[in-house]
């Protein structure tokens, strides 16, 4: 879309204005993405001197390896767990804060701040609470309730821990969006329902929740994207994909295969699969946005 009134006699200036953005994007996005695509179809010798074109061999290797299937499975559990708990917690907080009158801004502040914590530091903070040897909550679980908690050895404990840490960091984001959506609901609707005798729960189910469902859907997509791509730091700090691959999610595996395993072709093939995944998720998101956003004119 372009402005009806625009500059027509300044073509060189337009290219000049566009140049910095295109330069940065070309060097650090398009060129690497093209490299990934190229590497995904080649095998490079250990010294990086020669590469051979191998068609879909890398993809076949990736898609038939049991480790990759394990990674897909773990990513599915991790992203579902993180998304569901972060969205539900964000919604609950928003509904409660929207309802109370006193100390509203204090509550809001206390819920918003985790957004500013680096994912890796979130991992460190939670590790300190749940470390099997000196974590305060881990010791309480063990001694108080007799639960043999050990995320360093037990795969499900480790998964639970990374989900808690990842969801904790995302709750504030969801809270901000849900609160904005709740405050945008016209008061008259709620009041009319109240006059008709609908209680708080009935009003939430029949009026509030349907009205904020676009936000809910949007947040579900955003949270899945977050769990897929922005949680590297949490995994790296807490479990490093372990124990025994129990938290080896896709984005961690790309890093581990490329930088620790030094298998460029395999890592690039995974990058390409992830790109296809992001494109799919973005398409879903934009289809939904098309329905919601109305441009002027």
């Amino acid at each position, binding site marked *: 879309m372009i402005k009806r*009134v625009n500059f027509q006699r300044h073509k060189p200036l337009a290219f000049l204005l566009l140049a910095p953005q295109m330069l940065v994007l070309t060097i650090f996005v398009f060129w690497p993405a093209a490299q990934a695509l190229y590497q995904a179809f080649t095998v490079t010798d250990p010294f990086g001197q020669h590469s051979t074109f191998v068609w879909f061999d890398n993809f076949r290797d990736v898609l038939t390896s049991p480790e990759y299937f394990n990674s897909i499975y773990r990513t599915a559990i991790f992203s579902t767990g993180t998304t569901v708990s972060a969205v539900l917690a964000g919604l609950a907080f928003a509904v409660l804060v929207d309802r109370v009158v006193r100390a509203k801004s204090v509550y809001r502040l206390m819920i918003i701040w985790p957004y500013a914590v680096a994912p890796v530091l979130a991992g460190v903070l939670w590790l300190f609470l749940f470390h099997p040897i000196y974590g305060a909550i881990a010791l309480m679980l063990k001694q108080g309730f007799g639960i043999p908690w050990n995320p360093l050895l037990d795969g499900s404990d480790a998964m639970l821990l990374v989900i808690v840490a990842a969801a904790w960091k995302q709750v504030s984001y969801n809270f901000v969006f849900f609160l904005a959506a709740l405050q945008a609901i016209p008061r008259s609707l709620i009041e009319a329902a109240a006059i008709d005798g609908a209680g708080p729960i009935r009003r939430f189910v029949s009026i509030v929740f349907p009205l904020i469902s676009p936000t809910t859907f949007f947040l579900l997509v955003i949270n899945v994207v977050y769990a897929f791509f922005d949680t*590297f730091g949490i995994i790296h700090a807490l479990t490093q994909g372990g124990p025994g691959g129990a938290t080896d999610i896709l984005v961690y595996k790309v890093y581990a295969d490329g930088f620790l395993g030094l298998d460029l072709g395999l890592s690039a093939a995974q990058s390409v699969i992830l790109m296809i995944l992001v*494109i799919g998720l973005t398409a879903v998101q934009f289809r939904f946005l098309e329905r919601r956003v109305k441009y002027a004119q």
Partner: protein
Amino acid sequence: MIERTPKLDLFCHLLLIAGVIAVCLPLYYALIAATHTLPDVLQVPMPLTPGKELLVNLKAAVERGDLGRQLLNSLIVSVGVTVGKIAVSILSAFAITYFRFPFRMTAFWLIFATLMLPIEVRIVPTYAVAAHPLQGLGWLLDETGLRGPLESLTGWNVEAVVKWNLLDSYAGLILPLMASATATFLFRQLFLTIPEELLEAAKIDGASPMRFLIDVLWPMSRTNVVALTVILFVFGWNQYLWPLLITTEASMTTAVIGLSKQISAAPEAVPKWNTLMASALLITLPPVLVVIVLQRWFVKGLVDSEK
């Protein structure tokens, strides 16, 4: 308030207090650990109230490793990413919405496509580019046989030029993090809502394109710039994967990386949690302060940048 429900209100407050305690628990424990000596922190059960060692631990945290330098690095990186991304984005959004020129739509779709390529996905090749940005040039010179003549003619050491890279440099830390289109879209959306009459009036008054950008568009986008600044500052400060790869020297890395390296490479069997938590608090403080102080802008920035 629609009806009086004292019991339900009390219940809501209790639920909220419980939830807030759960959210703040990690921070509280970090604070407690940072105010005690190491033996106190490691005793079972850990003390539940703050101790008196906070200043000692903070001092130890700053002295151990390069924390002061790394905090400065973090500041440089986050400010660099923020300023660079806003400048680059506002210019390109201006070009796309206000100028008619060949390949305008191509440029738009190229920028749009980068939304789908987060850095985590293309991390290995991006690292390769940053490690050898001029490798293609060296290859080109070799293939065309120009390397020898060029070296003898100009006296340049081509090998040294080709070996130049972005590792352990601010440019290497900042530039790849600037490469994303989200801010361009934000400004494009904003410019599309600005009335056409403003440019008509400016043109009648004889304003040049840059004058229009500086005197009309920039003041009108100021609130969006502040909102975006909060988001980008936090984004830059908290980066992890990219600084982890691109920096090897302790004096060139960011505070977040410095701390996580201390934890994973702790020589002692048990990390010194009291000083580590003191540094964690120091590192978390700047972005948390920015978000809390500029809360209104933060919320606006978050909601806007996703539209």
